Structure formats: C-alpha cells, structure tokens
C-alpha cells in the first residue's frame, strides 16, 4: 500500500517537473475550445448543453491519451530504471497500478480544468446539469480505459514512438467498433450475435449511453473490466519481459 502511494506520488510529480503536463493540458484545453466553439457550432446551435463538447472527447483521447501512456513503461525500460523500480519491495501489481492511477489522475486534472466551460453554459442558459455530470463521469471512465490499453502497450516496448502508434491503432479499433461503417460491414451476413459482440466493445456506444445522462451499471462494468483486463495484461508483460 505504501509502495502504491509512493509510486503514484512519484509519477504525478514527474508529470509536473517536466513540461509534459503543461504542454498536455494546454493542448487539451485548446482542442476542447476549438472543437466545441468553432467546429461544434456551440453558439449556432442555440442550445445550452455540452453535447458538442463531449462528443469530441473520444476522438481527442484517441491521440492525447496514448501521448500520456506511451512513456509509462517504455521509458523505464529504455533507461533501465525499471530495474531500480522492480527491485524495491513492491509487487509488480502495485507498480503497474500506481503508474496507471497517476496517469488517470493526471487525465482527471486536465478534464477538471474544463469546468469553466460548464460554468459558461450555466451562465448562458439552463443546461441539464445531471447530464453534464454524467458526461464528465463517462469521459473520465473512457480516458481510464484508453490509458489502461496504452499502459499495457507501453510495457511491451522500449520505444515511446512504437508505444504511441500501436496504442492509437488499438484504441481506434475500440472506438470504431460501433461506427456504422463497421456494423454495416458485418450486417447482412454475420449472425446478430457477432454484430452485437463487436458493437458491445465499442467505446462510442458505451460513452454515448452515458452522455445521454443515464449511468448504466453495464457501461461502468464495461469500462472497469476493460481497464482491469488491460492492467492484468500489463503486469504479465512486465514480468515476462523485463529486459529483452
């Protein structure tokens, strides 16, 4: 436990003593602004809600989350600090969980910094704050699922570039699973169960469900079990290939 806390603290501090955190947060906020107000037509819609704001999150996360997760393990392995970390008296689980939680907290901080947007809509009109709160929860959960995938990929390589590219591709598959292009591809010839299985892995479907304002246990379980599975794979990969 004390190991877990120490790892979380060390990781979080390291985001903020390097420019990583500031660059990330600035880009995240700027993209949110551009997408919501320019591309999303926030003012033109004449509606006081944050739907355009949240609808871009999955696509922003697709690139920004792998940018956070790529260094988690790849850098430790390249520099060799993984040997320092894993010869401390902590389990590989605590180390992996600590790194993951720190990255997730960091993503949460970036997300929390968008709260002024929320305040703005309340000032402009009367939005359904329940829906917005649920959407924040959904966005945070989705970031966590993306991060777990990215951390797992990062554990498998010494190269941050490879970790980034592969994470983007895998995350894209999880996003795309629910797009009409994909379901159309299957419909007509594949049995419904296949289509249902594929779409059930879609981040978009689960995220959209939450942003409607209903936090369904099934959506929570989906993101939680996906993150859990990716973390377990992360631990296995680390234990298997510490040096090679």
């Amino acid at each position, binding site marked *: 436990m*004390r*190991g877990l*806390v*120490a*790892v979380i*603290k*060390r990781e979080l*501090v*390291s985001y903020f*003593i*390097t420019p990583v955190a500031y660059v990330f947060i600035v880009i995240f906020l700027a993209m949110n602004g551009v997408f919501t107000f320019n591309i999303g037509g926030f003012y033109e819609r004449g509606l006081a809600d944050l739907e355009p704001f949240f609808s871009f999150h999955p696509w922003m996360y697709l690139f920004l989350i792998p940018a956070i997760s790529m260094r988690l393990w790849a850098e430790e392995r390249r*520099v*060799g*600090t993984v*040997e*320092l970390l*894993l*010869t*401390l*008296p*902590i*389990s590989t689980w605590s180390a992996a969980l600590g790194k993951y939680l720190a990255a997730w907290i960091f993503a949460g901080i970036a997300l929390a910094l968008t709260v002024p947007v929320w305040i703005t809509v309340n000032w402009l009109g009367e939005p359904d704050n329940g829906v917005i709160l649920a959407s924040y929860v959904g966005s945070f959960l989705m970031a966590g699922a993306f991060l777990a995938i990215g951390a797992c990929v990062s554990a498998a390589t010494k190269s941050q570039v490879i970790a980034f590219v592969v994470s983007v591709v895998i995350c894209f598959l999880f996003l795309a699973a629910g797009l009409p292009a994909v379901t159309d591809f299957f419909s007509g010839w594949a049995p419904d169960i296949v289509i249902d299985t594929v779409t059930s892995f879609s981040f978009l479907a689960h995220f959209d469900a939450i942003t409607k304002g209903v936090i369904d246990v099934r959506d929570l379980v989906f993101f939680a079990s996906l993150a859990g599975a990716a973390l377990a794979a992360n631990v296995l990969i680390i*234990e298997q290939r*510490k*040096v*090679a």
Partner: protein
Amino acid sequence: MSAMIQIKNLRKEFGPIVAVDGVSFDTPKGEVLGFLGPNGAGKSTTMKMVTGFLPPTAGTAVVCGHDVLKDPIAVKASLGYLPEGAPLYGDMTPEGLYKFIAQVRGIPRPRRASAIDRVKSLVKLEGVMRQPIETLSKGYKRRVGLGQAILHDPPVLLLDEPTDGLDPNQKHDVRRLINEMAQEKAIILSTHILEEVDAVCTRAIVIARGRIVADGTPAELQARSVRHNAVRLRVRASADAVESELKQIATVAGVEREASANGVARCLVLAKPGAVIAGDVAGRVRAKGWAVEELVVEPGRLDDVFRDLTMSPSAGSRS
C-alpha cells in the same frame, strides 16, 4: 553465523545463450565478496536473479532466510542493490529520489530526513541534492545510485560495478565506505578493477562463461600466479651472468630478463610452484659479490591469475 546470501545452483538461459550455468556459493555476514570475470561472464545476470529482478531458469537464492522465488518482496526489503550502470530517474533530484525510495522502503516518516542526511554525507552529495539527476556528472550519478542502495541500511548489499566512473579520490572514499559497512553486512560487489579486490574484498570469486572458475581469498588467488614469490632483482652485473648463475638454483623455475642498462641487470626470478626462493637468490647474489640495487619478493599479480583463469580454453567450458 549462517550465510546471509545463499546462491543455489543458479542458472539463466536467454534463448540459446547460457548466461549463468550453475553458480552456487554462500556469503556470511562480514564478508565482502568480489565478483570477477570477463565481460559477458554472467556477473550482472547472477545479481539480477538474486535481487528477484530476473527469474532464474533453475536454482534459487536465499537472502536473510527468504527464498527469492517464494518471497521476493522480503528479499527485496532486506537488500540494497546498485544495478549495473546505476540507472536513475533523470528528471528527479537526488533529494526527491531518496524521499521516494525511503517511502517505498517504509522508513518511518520521522526518520526519513535523518536517513537521507546520513546518506548525503556518506556518498558526498552535499550541494547537488536539489539538482536534477540528469544534469549531474557520471561520477555523481553513480554516487546517487550507491546512496539509494544504502538508504535503508540493509543487511545485504549487491553492488554491480560500484566504482565505475569514479575519480581516484572517490574510488578511495567508496572503498573506505564499503570497508566501514563490511562488519555488519554481507556485501557482493562486481568489479573489473583487480586492485579493488585487494583493497576491499575478503573473498574473490572468478566466473567465466557462467561458471565459477576460482573461489578464495585475494591472497590465495595471488598465490596461483606464476609470479607468486618471484624475486625482482636489480644488480650490478652482466645480465647473461646473472641469468646463468640463478638458473642453477633448484627452486628457481626461470629467469625473465628485463631491460638492462649501464651494467645493471634487471630480471624477475620465477619460483617453482610452492617454493620460496628469496633466501637462495639473495645468498647466491651475495656469494657472487654483486652489488644489489633492488631485491623484492612479488606477491603475484591478480591480473595474471585472472587471465589464466578466464582465457584458458578449459575455463568454464561446458561439457
């Protein structure tokens, strides 16, 4: 005192490469064990297995009574480890790193500051504690790494090339530090500097191609040198005369001539194994009436022994 480190038949294969091939030894408290061997011999790999970082292909290690396969966390808690090359988090400061290590290692909060202060002065980091590690010189980084290993004052220390990259003063200080800690701990250190073995180790193990080829005190290893008990001689005489005269002594194995000048012969008189020849050589020189400028008994050279042990075709060969 039972052994604090027991290494039992450790073996490590990387695909077709056998990096460590059945290494066993015990290290009791108070021992400083020098781990020697040419590049690629398997020193670092052995240490990585003892620390629980790498899983052995076969065999195991027991540290302070804990089996590394069964209770790796207890093993990790009881040892301090300086990995090869001293990898460190470059963006942290030594102070930040030590706080992190102290917390993970469970040093109670009130004692952390004093533990860090102690290490700061032991490895001489005053003045750089708040500088990012990546901006420190190589020797300072090594010292930060060493400090990290001794922060919790562990009963067992594994140091992989602890003096690599240090200046002569620092090498001296680190050796003194190791000597001071030796009483209370079991220490294994790997090194390529053979004089270091003489300076700090109470025992030396030489490995080649993953196998132990020699194990003994530094003096015992030196005694295996062909130069052990040889006599270095500088006398006023012709080199030919000296050589032919001394070769007649029964216990002399041979005479190696070195550059002679101005009527002064310089040579190294080699002893037959186990023989002590200084008295005979001195007697013969006196009998001849040669003026002696130098007459020294050689303890033997570790580098010779090292070369013999690790270069001979049979060294560590796998049969």
